[in-house]
């Protein structure tokens, strides 16, 4: 079972520049959460703060009753063993081939024999579809393969929490779809707590249990997927629909008068703005070969009921 992460009043700034302030949220144990936000709103900084790579100015991050913002370096290394992190470019060790990269955490932290290590590494490589590429160096493979190898490395220590830093950036739509399916399958298989940082709306609509949105140096909203997807909050609506009209501008936020005008035009053009009328996209479910735990069983049933109602309505 995964571990709950409780973030309270978190504030981070570099020098005088505030990245975000007063972020409070709880990532429920074993669920998939997505953190959305326009580029440059400090999503990656948030992720690095969660694992204690960056120290926040204020606030607390509680994992298993321990506040990791106040832990000593030595204890921090212990807590980090709960985490698996997939970095943007995989962050593989350039001097080692894929096999050694994925075996690295096992060799450092466990006393397993080479044959046991081999079994685990090959199992994880099979999970992410990298069998046959063991001997390749990170510089010789594509970005998508690097990401999958990074994911395999994050998985070998059986983490309770997995953080994904833009798993879909730089990948083609097909690979993104495969990666999303992989994430959902993994969640059903290992039951860890997932946090995905991204600005890909399609993934955010299909994959998570919870969605959060960072904008204007604060957490605009965090809650169950249904709540955000049907929300009428202008920032959330603009971002999830990927349109220009709304509070989010090219460089920064826009002034209020312009936003109102744009939204009015949008309303005139016949787009729906009545509350609760947003369509809920279907949820991605674990693949057929995966045995679904109770949580996913319930989700699948809820999804099935929702679809049937839609069909009946049509």
């Amino acid at each position: 079972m995964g571990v709950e992460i409780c973030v309270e009043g978190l504030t981070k700034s570099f020098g005088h520049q505030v990245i975000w302030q007063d972020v409070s949220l709880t990532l429920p144990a074993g669920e998939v959460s997505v953190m959305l936000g326009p580029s440059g709103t400090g999503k990656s900084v948030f992720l690095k703060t969660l694992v204690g790579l960056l120290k926040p100015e204020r606030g607390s991050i509680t994992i298993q009753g321990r506040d990791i913002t106040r832990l000593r370096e030595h204890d921090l290394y212990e807590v980090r063993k709960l985490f698996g992190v997939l970095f943007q470019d995989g962050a593989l060790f350039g001097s080692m081939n894929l096999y050694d990269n994925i075996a690295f955490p096992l060799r450092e932290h466990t006393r397993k024999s080479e044959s046991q290590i081999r079994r685990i590494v090959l199992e994880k490589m099979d999970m992410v579809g990298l069998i046959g590429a063991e001997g390749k160096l990170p510089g010789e493979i594509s970005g998508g393969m690097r990401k999958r190898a990074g994911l395999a490395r994050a998985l070998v220590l059986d983490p309770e929490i997995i953080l994904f830093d833009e798993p879909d950036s730089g990948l083609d739509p097909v690979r993104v779809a495969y990666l999303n399916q992989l994430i959902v399958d993994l969640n059903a298989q290992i039951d860890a707590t997932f946090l995905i940082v991204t600005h890909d709306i399609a993934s955010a609509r299909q994959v998570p249990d919870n969605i959060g949105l960072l904008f204007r140096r604060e957490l605009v909203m965090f809650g169950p997927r249904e709540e955000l997807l049907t929300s009428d909050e202008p920032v959330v609506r603009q971002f999830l629909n990927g349109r220009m009209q709304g509070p989010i501008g090219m460089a920064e936020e826009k002034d209020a008068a312009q936003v109102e005008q744009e939204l009015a035009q949008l309303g005139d053009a016949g787009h729906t703005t009545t509350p609760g009328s947003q369509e809920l996209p279907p949820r991605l479910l674990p693949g057929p070969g995966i045995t679904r735990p109770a949580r996913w069983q319930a989700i699948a049933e809820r999804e099935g009921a929702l679809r049937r109602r839609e069909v009946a309505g049509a």
Partner: protein
Amino acid sequence: MSLSPTGALRHSGNLFAMALDVVRTIPRRPFQAREFIQQAWFVASVTILPTALVSIPFGAVIALQIGSLTRQLGAQSFAGAASVLAVLREASPIVTALLIAGAGGTAICADLGARKIRDEIDAMQVLGIDPIHRLVVPRVLASMVVAVLLNGLVSVVGVAGGYFFNVILQNGTPGAYLASFTTLAQLSDLWAAEVKALVFGAIAGIVASYKGLTAKGGPKGVGDAVNQSVVITFMLLFVTNFVMTAVYFQVVPQRG
């Protein structure tokens, strides 16, 4: 690197803090023997040839200067004594330091800096591995060991070069040159030079690692870090060299 005085102080503080971390981490098990051997081999392989090539002309210059100086003073019989002293006490630790910092330190800094900007260091920390223990300690120890060994190499090559130039090119007397070796120099000079080399190796390794691990801002950041690490190491080395020489003259009684 900011130019404000507090920025400079902060960097010195962080550098010193990392040096303390390294010292504290050295006894921690398991010792990264494999990494240490790889790094020692690597540092040695990039420094041995340049060191030997630099120390020949360096020894020759000293021999030429001292040869003509002793002739002017009418003390040719002391030519050997003086040139051994110069090579052993000053020239070899300085040549070693320059090459360890210039060839070994830059390679270490560039390697760690490239890993830093590719998020490899962050990934390592997230995997629960302390980069100081896994990467920095073996590199610092490797550069210390190689510095000590290189110092020996420079001494031998420098003295041989001095002999060649003084005896063969300046028509000095071989017997007098060799016989006067121990009139001024003593064994403690060699020990002092080795201690200097050890300290220089440590400084070069720590500064290079610190600069590499704090590199930021993409590939240009790595270049800047390498550049700064060489400059900072050289400044620290010459100051340290002065202090250690002054202390040495106070502590060890001199001959003659």
